[in-house]
């Protein structure tokens, strides 16, 4: 029994050390700053904006899919549809600000909980960059960039705000028991991201979105 306890405490000690060493890179060199009044406007895909259409390459559990990703803010939620070029619907999901995701439709061969859960975890922070809980601001001492920290049910979200666009540039979501999600937004204007890269989740999923100019 004593041997077991010793073994167990050694394991716990190692776990604490490991967790402590897994700090977010975005936290390094940060100092607390007052939360800007316009912090909400840093986020992409806000409720008061229109719909978005992206060319999408999605790699999930080794399967590669390409098509169109359609994002529409509907009241306080976001609806996301992924269809192939030929119009076949692959998935239709709904996301809430709290980090919940629900499946409206998913094609039979992808209709597995780990798959839809992984998609949900990847897209949720992309659609809701900030909040709803523990919203705090920091300043990166070296670059002077504003950093917004917040949380939802999927863990803590750390956003780096771009100087030119005034929008989220990089986002990392992490939770001790969940793999990390990294999202990078590229854009020349604050209207919509020109390109979005979603990675992480132990390499189970990678998403590359490119905005489609419909004009």
């Amino acid at each position, binding site marked *: 029994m004593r041997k077991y306890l010793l073994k167990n405490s050694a394991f716990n000690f190692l776990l604490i050390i490991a967790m402590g060493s897994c700090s977010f890179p975005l936290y390094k060199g940060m100092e607390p700053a007052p939360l800007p009044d316009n912090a909400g406007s840093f986020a992409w895909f806000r409720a008061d904006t*229109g*719909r978005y259409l992206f*060319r999408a390459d999605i790699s999930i559990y080794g399967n590669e899919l390409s098509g169109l990703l359609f994002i529409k803010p*509907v009241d306080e939620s976001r609806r996301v549809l992924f269809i192939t*070029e030929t*119009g076949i619907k692959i998935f239709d999901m709904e996301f809430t600000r709290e980090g919940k995701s629900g499946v409206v439709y998913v094609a039979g061969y992808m209709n597995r909980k780990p798959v839809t859960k992984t998609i949900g975890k990847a897209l949720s922070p992309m659609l809701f960059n900030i909040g709803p809980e523990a919203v705090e601001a920091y300043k990166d001492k070296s670059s002077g960039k504003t950093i917004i920290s917040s949380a939802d049910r999927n863990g803590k979200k750390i956003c780096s705000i771009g100087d030119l666009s005034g929008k989220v540039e990089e986002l990392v979501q992490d939770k001790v028991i969940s793999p990390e999600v990294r999202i990078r937004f590229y854009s020349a204007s604050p209207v919509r991201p020109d390109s979005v890269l979603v990675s992480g989740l132990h390499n189970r999923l990678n998403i590359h979105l490119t905005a489609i100019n*419909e004009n």
Partner: protein
Amino acid sequence: MRKFNYIITLILVLSPAFSLQAQEQFRPMAERSILLKGLEEASAATRTISSSFIQEKNLEVLSEKIISRGIFLFSRENNIRWEYTQPYRYLIIISNGRMLTRDEKNQKLYDIESNRMFSEMNRFISGCIQGDILRNEKEYSASYFESSSQYLVKLVPRNEKMRQMLNEVQIWFDKKDFAVASLKMIESGQDFTRIDFIDRKINAEIPPEKFSF
């Protein structure tokens, strides 16, 4: 404002294509053998099909449409080329049991037979284009309609799993040449994809390179 302009542009661009069918009055067909015989003869005489197409993806719940345009080519046996030109360039070639997809950055080659989804998709597309799908009574129940210029066939998959994905397929055939004028795939939840084939040319010369990888 951008969205408004987009919708107005779509209405202006698509109205000639859709107005014809909007005016058509379809009634149940008394004698379907005329269509089946016509399709058989037309299919036997058709070596190639080249056509422009407009694809409309209608997302009913969101009241949104996504419009794609491009060029469709078909050559016997089972060589298909979908070349999307709008809203972005994307190419699909199906030939000799393989499928190639290509965009501005990537090119991928799939073995159709090793992938059940692609295999079914290929069978379905070529079945629709050549009218073979109408003879597949085992998998689809069909109802037949006609107007003064077109035949309309509505196909409902018999398999429940298939119906979860595809509620109904509607195919419009031109009475003049029995060629497919339009194709509508209605999904569960009433979202649908409609493809209108315009400026169709039957048996025009198509260079074999169009179907090569």
